[in-house]
Structures are given as C-alpha cells and as structure tokens.
C-alpha cells in the first residue's frame, strides 16, 4: 500500500504544479467575485483586463474589485503561501510534523510586538501599518535570538527537542505579557482582540508590495535549502553525517521563517493552523521530499487561506468573521482527521 503511494508520488512533476497553479488562480478568481456584493465572473475578468490595459474605469464594480478585493486576495494568497512554506520548512528542520512558527515561539514573539504597537499607538508617518510591521518583525527576531540563546546555553548542538520545549515555554511567557499589555490598552482593546484573531480586511497595494517582496526573497532562500531540509527530515545527526553545515542551515532557515512570520503577523494578525495543516495535506501528494513539498505547500497554503477568507466574509455576510477563527476551526478538524488516519496507519 505504502509502496504504491511512494511510486504514485514519484510521478509528481510539472503536470501537478500546473494543476496546483490552476486551482490557486481559480480560487483567487472566485474570491475576487464573491463577497457581500457578488460580481459576475465575466465582469470581473473584464474589469481586471481593462485595468491591465491601463483603461480608466469608474463604476462601482471596478472600485470593489480593484481597490478592495484584488489587494485583499493577493495579500491572503501570499500570507497563506508564506505561513504554509514556513510550517513545511520547520517540520522538516525539526523532524517534527507538529512544528511550525507557533511551536518555535516566533509567532507569539511577533504578536507581542504588534500588540504593543497597537496598544501604545506606535505609528510610522505615511505608512499606516509600518509601526505594527516594524515592531512585529523586531519582536520576532528578538524572540528568535532569546529562544536560540536559551537553547544554545542548555544544549550546544541546538537539538530540536530543546528548541521546541523552549518555544512552548516562551509562547506561554509571551501570552502573559500580551495580557498585561492589553490591560493597559484602554479603548484599543477591541481593535487588539480583533487583530489577534486574524483579519485580512482592509489590505491595500502597499501591503501587497511588502508581502510580495518578502515572499520572493525569503521563499527563494527556503527553496534553495530543500536538499538540506531533506537531510534534516531524515535526522539531524544524519544531516551532519552526510556533510550538511547543520548550525548554519538551521540559523538560515530559522531567520527566514521568523522574518516571514513576523511580516505575515504584522499584516494579518495571528492566523493559526495554516502552517501546521497544509504541509500535512500537501505531503500526501508530494511525499516528504522538500524539492516538491516546499513549492507545492506554497500553492496549498494560498488556496487554504483564500477559501478560509472567503468563508469568513460570506458565511455571515454582511458581518465578517476573523479569518483566524475559520482557519483554526477548519484546521483543527482536518488536523484531527490527519492525525487519526496516521495513527491507524492509513
């Protein structure tokens, strides 16, 4: 049975990527069309085409599509792709299917920076979200340094179990500080609470540019380390044995992942389960080889978050749920199913 599964995924190649790309584009198109106002698909395609050709458009549909939905959909897809590839990379690096940015403690660290910026009204003039982004990234990096320094002190080899244990303890510590910060947040408590649940509304092209830049640069760094991640996924000792520079690769991947998560958290708040669940689902098609898993995880993460966001803004329309609530709800169910299936040897 498993042998057949291995043979099946050996055939995972260009055709599959084409299917993944088509599914992602279709999901994105559906998300652009649907919402509190439904825009027919033909009109949507026409509006986008005219915009690409540089034609002026002034109707309501074009305003909704071009100013609201497209930037939101691109941001959602990029955040989904980055959270997912971050999770896949961490699961390989730590040889632990339950690892992702939140297990490492970086998500919590990023959240602390963002919450502090929101609570104390720290802004950068001209760019509305820059204060949150800057503090979120700084906080994510500082968290990483604290986590790694502690892990290094306790265990010179930066063993995975030590890092995960410290990550969990660090997350608990940070959540207590966040609660403290919220206590002093006064009338901003509601905004912070909504943000911590994860929101993808109100994103513009500035956010698109920031996310796209991070996705291209950091995504490339992670993809270029696919072979090293394979070696780590077999075992850190094995990776060292075959000649991987274990400490250097670990630092590169951890810094890239924390930067990605820091940027994502600053734009959308904490969106859970994307980095944990989508690599699991993707691995069923690609197998554990990171050369296939990493790019496929990007597509899968984008589709998962696009659909979760679509549900969040349509299920109780015109009310909008935070996307993090939907991803956690769907993700936890899917995760239990995957876990159950794995335990049964399926």
């Amino acid at each position, binding site marked *: 049975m*498993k*042998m057949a*599964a*291995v*043979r099946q995924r*050996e055939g995972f190649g260009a055709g599959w990527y084409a299917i993944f790309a088509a599914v992602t584009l279709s999901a994105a198109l559906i998300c652009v069309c649907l919402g509190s106002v439904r825009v027919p698909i033909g009109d949507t395609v026409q509006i986008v085409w005219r915009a690409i050709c540089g034609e002026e458009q002034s109707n309501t549909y074009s305003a909704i599509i071009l100013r609201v939905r497209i930037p939101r959909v691109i941001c959602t897809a990029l955040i989904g792709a980055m959270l997912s590839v971050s999770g896949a990379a961490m699961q390989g690096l730590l*040889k*632990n*299917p339950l690892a992702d940015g939140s297990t490492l403690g970086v998500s919590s660290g990023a959240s602390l920076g963002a919450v502090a910026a929101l609570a104390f009204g720290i802004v950068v003039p001209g760019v509305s979200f820059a204060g949150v982004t800057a503090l979120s990234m700084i906080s994510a990096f500082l968290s990483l340094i604290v986590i790694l320094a502690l892990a290094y002190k306790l265990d*010179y080899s930066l063993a995975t179990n030590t890092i995960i244990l410290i990550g969990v303890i660090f997350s608990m510590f940070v959540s207590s500080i966040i609660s403290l910060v919220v206590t002093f947040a006064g009338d901003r408590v509601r905004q912070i609470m909504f943000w911590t649940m994860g929101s993808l509304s109100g994103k513009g092209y500035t956010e698109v540019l920031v996310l796209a830049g991070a996705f291209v640069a950091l995504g490339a760094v992670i993809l*270029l380390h696919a*072979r090293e991640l*394979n*070696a780590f*996924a*077999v*075992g850190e*000792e*094995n990776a*060292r*044995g*075959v*000649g*991987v*520079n*274990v400490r250097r690769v670990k630092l590169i991947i951890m810094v890239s992942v924390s930067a990605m998560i820091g940027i994502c958290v600053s734009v959308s708040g904490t969106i859970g389960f994307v980095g944990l669940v989508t690599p699991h689902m993707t*691995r069923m098609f690609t*197998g*554990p*080889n990171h050369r296939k898993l990493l790019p496929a995880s990007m597509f899968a993460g984008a589709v998962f978050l696009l659909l979760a966001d679509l549900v969040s803004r349509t299920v109780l329309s015109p009310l909008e749920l935070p996307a993090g609530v939907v991803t956690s709800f769907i993700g936890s169910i899917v995760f239990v199913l995957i876990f159950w299936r794995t335990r049964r040897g399926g």
Partner: protein
Amino acid sequence: MMLELENLTVAYGALTIVDGISFTLPDGEWLMIAGPNGAGKSTIIGAISQNVKYTGSVRLDGEDAARMKPAKLARKLGVLTQNHWVSYSFSVEEVVRLGRYSHSRGLFGGAGNGDNDAVERALELTGMTALRSQSVLTLSGGELQRAFLAQLIAQDPELMLLDEPTNHLDLVYQKQTFSLVRDWIAQTGRSVVSVVHDLSLARAFGTRTLLLEHGHAVEYGETKKVLSRENLRRVYSLDVVEYMRGMFEQWNDSTLDV
C-alpha cells in the same frame, strides 16, 4: 587515509569519559574498539566524527579534523549509528541519495552521473535495489540499517565509523553486514573503525583492536594480540576465553547433527 588520534580526552564536567587515547590507523585496516559498558567506545567514535567536544587532536591525513568544513569532513569520514528513528516516508532511494550531498556541486546540487552510479552501486551492494521505491517507514530494523549502510557506501568516505552497527540485528543481517564491510575494505583499500560488544565478531573481522577500560587504553594493536586471555580477564573481571568455550560447548550436542 591515515587516521591519527593524539591524547584524545573527553570530559563532562569533572567526569572523564575518555582519557588520553592516542593511536595511528593506516589504510586497509578494520579497527575494533572493544571494552565493557561505559568504557568510552562510542564517545571515541563521536569525537572522531566531531559530534562530541574533546581535547587533543584528530588528524585525517595530517589535517586537523576539527578545522574541516562539514562537506569535506563527510568526504573523509562517514558514520553509521545503531538506531535510526525516521518520521517521514522517504523512499529508500531518497535516503541513499542523501549520501551524495557532500559530493554535489553548485547551488541546486543536481545529480551527476557519478552520483547516480554511486547510488546504484550502494543499492546493489546492500541488496536494497528491489526495495528502492519502498517507504523507509515500512522497513524492518535490518532493512533500515542496510538502507543507511547503503547511504554510507554512496557517501564514499575514506574512513567508515560504525557504532555498534549490528546491535539489535538478527544473525543473518549481522553476518551480511560484517561480510559486506569486509568486502568494502578489500575493494577500496580504505579503513573502518567500529565499536563492538561481541568479542567473537571483533576477533573474526578486526585486523586491529583498541581495548578500553574506564576510558583508558589497555592495549592497541593486532587484534589477536590485544584480545588476549590476560587482557580480557583484566578488563571484564572474568575468564572470557573459558566463558566463550563454555558457550560454544552448548552447540557440541550430537542431537544437533541429525
């Protein structure tokens, strides 16, 4: 390749695990590290492979191993441990192919003809060709150990370090593994260092032996000379030769000849 250890010492705080070990191992030899539990056998393997902090020096062809980059070190020496815990369903071939990591060139590390040949040869030598597409999660303990031995052969190191390679393996796999390593030495002219508990295997396959007691070297040299009755009695506090002969007597039973 010449392996030279000079005054190798490993200590955890006040506790000294390995104390001032020195020896030189030329090409084409199979060195057995023997001694009772806690004598420091695996720690020496860990220090040679740079996985354990030590003082003193480990030199490979005169070059300090501690200063080598990981990829160069992997081309010089490869390690096979006794336990393999795998989490993901990599195929046997994918695991074996990782052995070629230190030989790859360029950013993307694509497989060259040399890599493909080395992988094929390693699969064939270890009898894993038929299982090449199988998930490592479905392999038995012996098959998994052979898959990692194939990875080590594909890695093509100048020195193999085997840390109790046949522990937990049944007699058939034990015989296969030891014969395979002996063939590898004969074909390549390279050397192997292995930790063994089974003194019969050490006598049968080892050309040299390092006998340890509480981290100290009792004797280093030709296997038959080092594993002498006197040395073994001293280290194990038991007449090992008498004990082994007694065990062998169990098989001198005429009912077994039917």
